[in-house]
């Protein structure tokens, strides 16, 4: 998957550059609420429960201030990604123990016909493993600037 294709899974309504959450729990709720507000998720509780179960198996805080909570759920009609940023950072029980600043919440239906769920996750991990991209994402001011970073254009 190309970065330009990855960019198609984001939406302006799921872009939250100033998260209010202070805890892991609040962070997940704040991000899921974006999906609810955009009418992409009807059953908030089911999605949160699925995400908590996933976190119980191992934190999705992959280190360097990045978390990619993810999962499949009947509550999601399509693959969609929310982006959230916390300037102060949130304790997320991440692999390196550092607070998380950049959140990418990926939801997918139980069977996505296009089989894009894993490629999407893989591309995100790859993009976020580059420090330069994370630094840029800490600076973006608008959804358009955010998308430019995802696409990878200078």
């Amino acid at each position, binding site marked *: 998957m190309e970065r330009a294709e990855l960019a198609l899974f984001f939406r302006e309504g799921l872009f939250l550059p100033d998260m209010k959450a202070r805890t892991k729990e609040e962070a997940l709720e704040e991000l899921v609420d974006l999906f609810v507000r955009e009418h992409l998720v009807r059953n908030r509780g089911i999605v949160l429960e699925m995400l908590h179960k996933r976190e*119980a*198996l*191992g934190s*999705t805080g*992959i280190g360097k201030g990045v978390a*990619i909570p993810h999962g499949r759920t009947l509550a999601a009609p399509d693959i969609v990604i929310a982006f959230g940023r916390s300037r102060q950072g949130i304790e997320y029980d991440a692999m390196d123990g550092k607070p998380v600043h950049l959140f990418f919440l990926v939801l997918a239906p139980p069977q996505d016909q296009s089989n894009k769920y894993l490629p999407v996750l893989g591309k995100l*991990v790859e993009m976020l493993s580059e420090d330069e991209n994370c630094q840029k994402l800490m600076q973006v001011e608008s959804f358009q600037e955010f998308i430019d970073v995802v696409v990878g254009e200078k």
Partner: protein
Amino acid sequence: MLRNQLEMLVALQDLDCMLREVEDVKALGFEVPGKVDLEKAREELARQISPPLLSTYERLRARYKRAIVPVKDNKCLGCFMRLPTSLGARGRKDEEVITCEGCGRILYWLD
């Protein structure tokens, strides 16, 4: 009795799906230490399922993502073949393990 076995097999299948997802995301670089607990739960569950049923399941699982599927409106929800109504009558008796004539998957009746 058999009903109970089939229910456990469905639970086993759910666990196997979860384990597969965990494998997939591990390959992408996520750490999933809880996987060992899932595996332990799977082992315990598998031990309670009769060996012939379990081996049928394992054999089918090599071929299909879902080896045990429900029947709805006389249709196998694995391959959507229409099944003879007599099969439904036998299946609902819970006396024998019934497999789909079309795809070979293990069947259970929801109604």
